[in-house]
């Protein structure tokens, strides 16, 4: 087998990342320049600031990634770049930097859907085996996806309103926890108790869809009432109660899907895949097939996952994109399938 060396580029939100991956599995380098500390002061990502930071750091990140990989630009077989979805101003920096390398060295380039990157992050440590069920949980997505083979995404269900990560961030903000809120809620959960027994929305709906805005409002209202009545409460109990409700739903829906579809493995993808509460519950409650999570460093946005996804996309569709490739803030998962 001839090695396929892929350069991944990811700038869809607030991390500038470049990575070199061999054969869709072996990460030779994965450099992530995070802007979290910059956006912290604003309680969330400011798009214009994110774009400015991407331009500032772009060549430095490329340089670090190439140096650490031990290869040279000339050795690269394919460039894989996130084309969407994401912040458009941010996406355009990565797309144009990637196109410039493509033109400079005459290397084929391929656009990658950000969420496929999160899914394919799993292949780095555990080879994906089909059919598989992917639970995608992030700040922008909550989806159950059936994959019958590489680069085939069949959406079984999705959130009808808020993404799970979005609900986490909102709850964290109400409790006054620092940005980014998700990991904070997870951390506090570990020492709290489920004393509020929040509703488990749509848990018995019989389909594979989700809804988190009602639960989010429920948590916010209770918090508001307690404050009004000047009653004391523990943030960790709020976090634990919320987290139990969310993870119960995620696990139950995944189990429903396992009843309906015969798969070889379950993979969890996206930023919320780093959530310890979710990891523990998925592993303890789903035992019929193996459940895999990406390593923590590949749960948050990174270019290695984009390189892996690009590798399989290229092998599947057998052609690259042309120089008209552009960034797109909204993008369908099955584009170019």
């Amino acid at each position, binding site marked *: 087998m001839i090695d396929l060396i892929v350069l991944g580029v990811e700038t869809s939100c607030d991390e500038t990342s470049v990575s070199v991956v061999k054969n869709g599995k072996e990460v030779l380098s994965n450099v992530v320049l995070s802007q979290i500390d910059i956006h912290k002061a604003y309680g969330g990502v*400011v798009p*214009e600031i994110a774009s400015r930071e991407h*331009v*500032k750091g772009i060549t430095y990140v490329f340089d670090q990634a190439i140096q650490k990989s031990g290869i040279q630009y000339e050795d690269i077989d394919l460039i894989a770049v996130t084309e969407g979805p994401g912040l*458009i101003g941010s996406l355009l*920096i990565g797309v*144009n930097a990637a196109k410039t390398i493509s033109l400079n060295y005459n290397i084929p380039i391929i656009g990658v859907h950000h969420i496929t990157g999160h899914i394919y992050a799993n292949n780095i440590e555990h080879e994906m085996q089909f059919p598989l069920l992917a639970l995608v949980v992030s700040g922008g997505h909550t989806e159950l996806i059936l994959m019958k083979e590489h680069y085939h995404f069949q959406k079984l269900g999705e959130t009808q309103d808020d993404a799970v990560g979005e609900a986490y961030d909102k709850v964290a903000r109400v409790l006054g926890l620092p940005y980014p809120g998700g990991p904070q809620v997870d951390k506090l959960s570990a020492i709290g108790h489920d004393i509020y027994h929040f509703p488990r929305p749509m848990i018995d709906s019989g389909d594979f869809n989700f809804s988190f805005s009602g639960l989010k409002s429920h948590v916010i209202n209770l918090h508001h009432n307690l404050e009004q009545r000047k009653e004391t409460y523990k943030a960790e109990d709020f976090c634990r109660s919320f987290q139990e409700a969310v993870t119960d739903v995620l696990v139950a829906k995944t189990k429903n899907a396992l009843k309906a579809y015969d798969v070889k493995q379950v993979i969890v993808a996206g930023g919320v895949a780093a959530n310890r509460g979710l990891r523990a519950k998925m592993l303890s409650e789903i035992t019929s097939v193996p459940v895999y999570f990406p390593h923590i460093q590949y749960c948050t946005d990174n270019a290695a996952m984009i390189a892996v996804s690009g590798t399989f996309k290229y092998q599947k569709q057998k052609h690259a994109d042309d120089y008209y490739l552009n960034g797109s803030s909204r993008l369908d998962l099955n584009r170019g399938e």
Partner: protein
Amino acid sequence: MKNAFKRLVIDTATPYLYLSLIIGDIEVGSVYQEGDHNHSVTIIPMLSALLEENDLQLKDLDQIIVGIGPGSYTGVRIGVSIAKMIGYLNQVEVYTISSLILLASSSNHQRMIPYVDARRGNAFMSLIEQRENTLFVVEDDVLMNATEFIRKSGDDAILIKSGKPKIEKILSSNVFKRVENIHDLVPNYLQITEAERHLRSS
């Protein structure tokens, strides 16, 4: 021709995409095309075609000149990112220029206000004079109320909103700044973001 000095000029800060390829002192090819929200789609295909027509590759270039704004934030970042990557990949020297001076070079008037709309009555502007085909900056790039700046600049200053840059004029003027460390190259936005302003004033 083969050993002649090869320059590429890039500007994406205005609604027009501008590319110019200069070999020796001769502009051998150029692009000046309107397309407000399309620079990101078209610039690399256009650049690729421009190089191909002249049997050149990016690696053959000796110098990059890039317009760093002021102008459209999203627009200027595209050209700057590309110039930055070319400079970094090939260790080629990069010079910056005001996108407003490029704009002014299109005109033959003596006193000019190159103008890029910034909404709410504001614009990116400067005051440029030309004498014997050479450009001089009288008032540096600003972002402010357009009416006010125009009034202040006198009746003889002509507003320039579009026009293909005249590169010979640019090259004979002292209007470039050399980029010492390519990793430091960023656009000239002229102002901090709204979010930063709010944070500072709160």
